[in-house]
């Protein structure tokens, strides 16, 4: 009968317009193109979609495609003689075009101090706990610090990274050796670090080679390893780059690249100008950045001094072979010394710089090195102190935290509880 034929045709048309015709890899391709906020909502569509959105491979593919922002953290300021009221910590975001927005930062409490950022997860140092947050999904984890750590610990002794082969996230704590009479601003030594694998157990000890470390200058996580600077006597220019592999949990020391003005001699100090060194991440590779520091910086800030003159960015091409290549080289204006936020200050071929009066600039690292040209003023940070800022590379991701909620050191948000009767 005619109506039966019509019904059959309608059913066929219905089936043809159904998205379930699409193969899983194609569905994957479509969902990759949607932002996290949309994908969170789509979990409730059907079982298949929920499965795709929970698949770790999909989550990493999506994370790798997400646009990269530069996140600038301004630590909170206490009230003082010059500052009438305390200013809470603030976060500024620079998108791919370097337009700046202030983050609503509902994930951040006033006392939180950002110490790491990896795959869209932010790590905050708090008085009694460490907090890991994915601001895009809203999930958060509170973890207790290693035993015996006082509430007046230092945020930069903590670090966080990811190893792509194992898919594991690890927190790293540099156990500081007490040094009496050490003047501030000097590097300190450690002989062990403590590591926590997210989701598993507590903090584990890992022995470290006895070398002084400069982790206060920033630690970066690239390709499954943590990198930071170390002072090494006898090394060229007195500096080495340390690497800690997050899978093997072993340390290695990398010789720095042949730095400008250095004859390449490895015995004793060379005649190079006094350089500031930074370890950072550029285009998913570990990098060593050098720039001559302005000697007018006060001694206690010597390791985060203003720089001017030639800034070189060396990329580590191969960790196993200590092979570096010069990626960028640019002349910073000698008349206007600049400061860089750590640890990540290069994004999209441009570098983020601070000036003494609180201005933040971005400057192109490619092309000709004109003295004054190329600096674009972005905003002014006052009253926040330009030499205390930190910057990280951030992307919005779907990385879940609820899967790690079973570890022994997980705490509730309001831990420790106030004593009864207070």
């Amino acid at each position: 009968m005619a109506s039966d034929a019509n019904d059959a045709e309608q059913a066929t048309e219905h089936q043809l317009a159904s998205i379930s015709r699409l193969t899983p890899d194609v569905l994957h391709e479509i969902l990759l193109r949607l932002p996290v906020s949309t994908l969170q909502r789509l979990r409730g569509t059907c079982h298949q979609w929920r499965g795709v959105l929970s698949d770790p491979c999909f989550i990493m593919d999506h994370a790798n495609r997400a646009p990269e922002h530069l996140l600038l953290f301004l630590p909170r300021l206490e009230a003082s003689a010059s500052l009438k009221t305390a200013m809470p910590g603030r976060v500024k975001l620079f998108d791919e075009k370097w337009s700046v927005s202030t983050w609503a930062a509902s994930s951040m409490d006033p006392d939180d101090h950002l110490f790491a950022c990896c795959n869209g997860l932010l790590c905050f140092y708090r008085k009694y706990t460490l907090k890991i947050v994915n601001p895009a999904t809203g999930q958060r984890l509170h973890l207790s610090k290693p035993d015996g750590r006082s509430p007046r610990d230092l945020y930069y002794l903590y670090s966080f990274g990811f190893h792509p082969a194992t898919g594991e996230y690890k927190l790293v704590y540099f156990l500081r050796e007490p040094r009496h009479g050490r003047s501030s601003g000097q590097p300190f030594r450690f002989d062990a670090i403590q590591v926590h694998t997210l989701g598993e157990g507590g903090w584990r000890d890992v022995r470290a080679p006895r070398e002084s470390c400069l982790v206060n200058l920033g630690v970066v996580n690239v390709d499954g390893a943590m990198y930071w600077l170390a002072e090494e006597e006898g090394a060229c220019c007195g500096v080495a780059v340390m690497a800690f592999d997050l899978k093997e949990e072993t340390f290695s020391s990398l010789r720095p690249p042949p730095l400008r003005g250095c004859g390449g001699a490895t015995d004793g100090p060379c005649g190079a100008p006094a350089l500031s060194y930074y370890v950072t991440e550029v285009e998913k590779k570990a990098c060593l950045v050098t720039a001559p520091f302005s000697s007018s910086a006060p001694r206690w800030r010597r390791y985060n001094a203003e720089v001017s003159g030639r800034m070189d960015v060396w990329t580590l091409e191969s960790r196993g072979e200590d092979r570096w290549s010069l990626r960028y080289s640019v002349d910073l204006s000698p008349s206007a010394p600049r400061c860089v936020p750590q640890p990540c200050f290069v994004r999209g071929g441009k570098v983020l710089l601070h000036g003494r009066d609180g201005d933040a600039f971005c400057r192109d690292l490619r092309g000709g090195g004109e003295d004054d040209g190329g600096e674009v003023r972005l905003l002014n940070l006052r009253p926040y102190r330009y030499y205390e800022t930190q910057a990280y590379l951030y992307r919005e991701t779907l990385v879940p935290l609820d899967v790690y909620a079973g570890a022994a050191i997980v705490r509730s948000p309001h831990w420790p509880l106030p004593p009864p009767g207070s």
Partner: protein
Amino acid sequence: MTAPTMTSRSPTSTQRSSPRSLSTARSTSSTSTAAAAPAEDLKSFDAEFVKVDRATLFDLILAANYLNIKGLLDLTCQTVADMIKDNTPEEIRKIFNIKNDFTPEEEAEVRKENQWAFE
């Protein structure tokens, strides 16, 4: 990769999609050797190209995936993504004829997942 099935289809849509995708592939690959068309022309060509019914759109996606035509796959997947972007799961199920296979308990669980740590 599975080949798109072209059985039990209305003749018009089969005839519509195969020659359409093949001629696009020819035109996009030839632009790499000949002088390239202006960007705006290509962009409006692309926009017009995907103004088809959903069945044809899925035909195109499956063909592009099977024939490994990256440009066409990008364009068609982005089109579907744009259709999904601002809609609720219920609206998406209606637009794309997806069966809701969650039990009420499972739906509650998904809602709870989404609110997991908004403590």
